[in-house]
């Protein structure tokens, strides 16, 4: 009897699980069906107009190098903006990190507001900063520097404060125990531990800033992007290609230099004092040169300050609530763009991850090595440029946004997928091989179970990043809430821009929070 009920309960559980599984699958399918409709995704138009993309590329070839001399100045301006933006951002980030740390400031009254401020800064996407600063300070590189410094500050503060949570609290006690005051404790126990990771993050953000700086001119914030807009408007495609290639080269060179510096720093190479002073001199010179040639003036700064207080005032006192529904609707579309784009990218990069790793399958070395380079090359192409190309192909709308995100994300997903495959434990693989399993069986039972949770975690992380991208790509015409910002911007309807911010910030925050929770669950099992 007992056995019977036991069996009945067991099969009941099995059925319940199966039911839950099918229900989940159904919901997932429904979710994707809904998202695909939302982004107006249909394969026939991709096939129908996809040819136009290559036609467009064909019209760009050969690139017009005669335009190079007049591109030198914007190129330098791009570097200057990135340098100055990173420098100012780092300056702003340091106090945020220190006073947002529980270890340094033991009063929650101080570190909570600082952390909340940090999180809000972090939710605003790069291009949105650019739009806001252009509106505040007028066209030109000064707006770019403002946007980049906030963008840089947000990321440096976020990453470094994660490191700050992990510093050793013991030296802090030692310095307190000798009777030192708070600032001395920070100077002698906190900063020495924090500086290495801080500098590491600053270098990383400089790389990011070069990418952003190269394209943010598209919304009027100075640098190469402005030339790109002009060339695109005049349909001067050979010049477009020249500019795109130039940006591509700049990004790759900067990445290489940054990697060199980072390696030297991590290994702690002892430098001759003269060399070290020389380096500091070069760095200081670079910053001063950027400062002087950008012609940042105080009246503009004051104007910008007034603009932002007006914006905050508009949001808090007379929000354009009648546009709230529309803003939410467009935000949903941004989420759909991010979801479909990330999924496509994931499907494309999944095989790439396995092919780029020769850990477990016998792939020719040459193939694996060349596969490994593909993500690096793709990564150097900013989403925005891809989006512009796709808009020229398919016309404005969410589809170009999806495709731009899908292609650009292959860079990161492919790279990290390969790394995940590369570091799987080989013992289970050997156990299956020794039992005579086929290659496919080894893959199914020894490889896949190890990599799947990490792949999913990576997918979710990339989705989080892409939500930010999807909410601004509309500024160039690629659908989502960015398109609303773009329209409001051209009518100077700041209250509508404000309502967009009100929708974007909590959405991105919620996505970040959920993503962090799910990833933690996935990785820890």
């Amino acid at each position, binding site marked *: 009897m007992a056995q019977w009920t036991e069996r009945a309960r067991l099969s009941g559980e099995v059925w319940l699980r199966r039911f839950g599984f099918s229900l989940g699958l159904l919901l997932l399918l429904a979710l994707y069906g809904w998202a695909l409709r939302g982004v107006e995704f249909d394969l026939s138009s991709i096939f129908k107009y996809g040819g136009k993309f290559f036609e467009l590329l064909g019209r760009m070839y050969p690139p017009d190098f005669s335009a190079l001399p007049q591109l030198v100045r914007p190129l330098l301006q791009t570097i200057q903006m990135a340098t100055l933006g990173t420098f100012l951002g780092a300056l702003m980030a340091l106090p945020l990190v220190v006073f947002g740390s529980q270890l340094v400031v033991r009063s929650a009254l101080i570190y909570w507001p600082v952390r909340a401020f940090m999180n809000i800064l972090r939710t605003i996407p790069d291009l949105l900063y650019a739009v806001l600063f252009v509106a505040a300070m007028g066209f030109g590189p000064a707006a770019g520097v403002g946007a980049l410094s906030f963008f840089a500050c947000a990321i440096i503060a976020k990453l470094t404060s994660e490191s700050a949570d992990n510093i050793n609290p013991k030296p802090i*006690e030692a310095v307190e*125990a000798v*009777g030192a005051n708070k600032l001395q404790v920070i100077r002698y126990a906190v900063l020495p531990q924090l500086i290495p990771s801080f500098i590491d993050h600053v270098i990383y953000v400089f790389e990011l800033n070069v990418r952003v700086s190269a394209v943010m001119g598209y919304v009027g914030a100075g640098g190469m992007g402005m030339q790109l807009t002009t060339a695109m408007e005049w349909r001067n495609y050979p010049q477009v290609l020249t500019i795109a290639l130039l940006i591509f080269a700049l990004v790759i060179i900067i990445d290489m230099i940054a990697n060199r510096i980072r390696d030297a720093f991590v290994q702690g190479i002892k430098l001759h004092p003269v060399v070290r002073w020389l380096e500091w001199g070069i760095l200081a010179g670079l910053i001063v040169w950027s400062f002087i040639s950008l012609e940042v003036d105080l009246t503009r700064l004051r104007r910008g300050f007034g603009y932002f207080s007006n914006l905050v005032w508009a949001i808090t006192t007379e929000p354009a609530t009648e546009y709230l529904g529309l803003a939410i609707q467009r935000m949903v579309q941004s989420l759909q763009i991010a979801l479909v784009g990330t999924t496509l990218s994931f499907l494309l990069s999944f095989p790439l991850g396995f092919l780029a790793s020769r850990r477990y399958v016998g792939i020719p070395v040459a193939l694996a090595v060349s596969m490994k380079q593909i993500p690096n090359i793709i990564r150097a192409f900013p989403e925005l440029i891809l989006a512009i190309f796709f808009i020229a192909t398919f016309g404005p709308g969410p589809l170009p946004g999806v495709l731009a995100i899908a292609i650009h994300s292959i860079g990161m997903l492919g790279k990290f997928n390969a790394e995940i495959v590369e570091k799987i434990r080989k013992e289970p693989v050997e156990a299956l091989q020794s039992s005579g399993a086929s290659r496919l069986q080894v893959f199914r039972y020894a490889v896949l179970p190890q990599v799947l949770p990490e792949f999913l975690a990576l997918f979710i992380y990339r989705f989080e990043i892409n939500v930010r991208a999807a909410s601004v790509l509309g500024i160039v015409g690629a659908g989502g809430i960015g398109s609303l910002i773009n329209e409001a911007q051209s009518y100077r309807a700041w209250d509508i821009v404000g309502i967009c911010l009100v929708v974007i910030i909590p959405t991105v925050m919620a996505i970040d929070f959920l993503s962090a929770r799910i990833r933690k669950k996935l990785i820890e099992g």
Partner: protein
Amino acid sequence: MATPILRVHNLTVIYPGVHPVKALDNVNLEIYPGEFVVVAGVSGSGKSTLLRAINRLAENDHARIEGEIYFDGINVLKASRRQLREIRSHIGFIFQEYNVVERLPVLTNTLVGSLAQVGFLRSLLGRFPKEQIERAHRALVRVGIPQHRHGDRAARLSGGQKQRVGIARALLQRPKLILADEPVASLDPITANVVMNIFKKINEDEGITTIVNLHDPVLTFKYGKRIIGLKGGRIIYDKPISAINRETFEEDIYGTVDGEG
């Protein structure tokens, strides 16, 4: 006898939480200038809490400290932040885990001990006065770190050497009292004896009052001149070494040989 340099009166320390823990229960004691006191007890007996309550580091662990602690006649528990910093600057604290900043040079780690004596701006810029730098070199040499290693990062030192830096740091404070919380618990027996000898010599040469927490009975009897036994947050012994019967002491403090109690 002279007036005590440290007087602890009815000290009770509670770590609040869902299950509050009473780490010290009504502790009374007087320490006189020049004494060398070993506080003995198993882990969890309240040794660390006692030392960390004296300079109020225990507040970092959100401990509630009740009672009175007089250092040099000043009530530590009633002191303002500024007064507390002043008090702390006269008390050298030695940690079990050395608490050096691994990335900073040995010399800077030592100079940290002089922060309270150096002008504020100078200290923030890292420009220590020549006199302090020289004192730091001398203190390091004295505890056995040769001059050519003073520029090395602390990360490159062994555990025993890091603890010597910890002692040099305390010496730079010109302390009236040294509190050492399990200073040799992370060291091998030979190094432990070397470090304990440094404490002994400082106490004998300069007469700096020293309180050392030790869980090891061998070291306790070798170095202690006065021994305070803690158990469950209460003082159960407080006698000069000569007055203690070693066997009954060990049973009372550490429990029976098979680990009960």
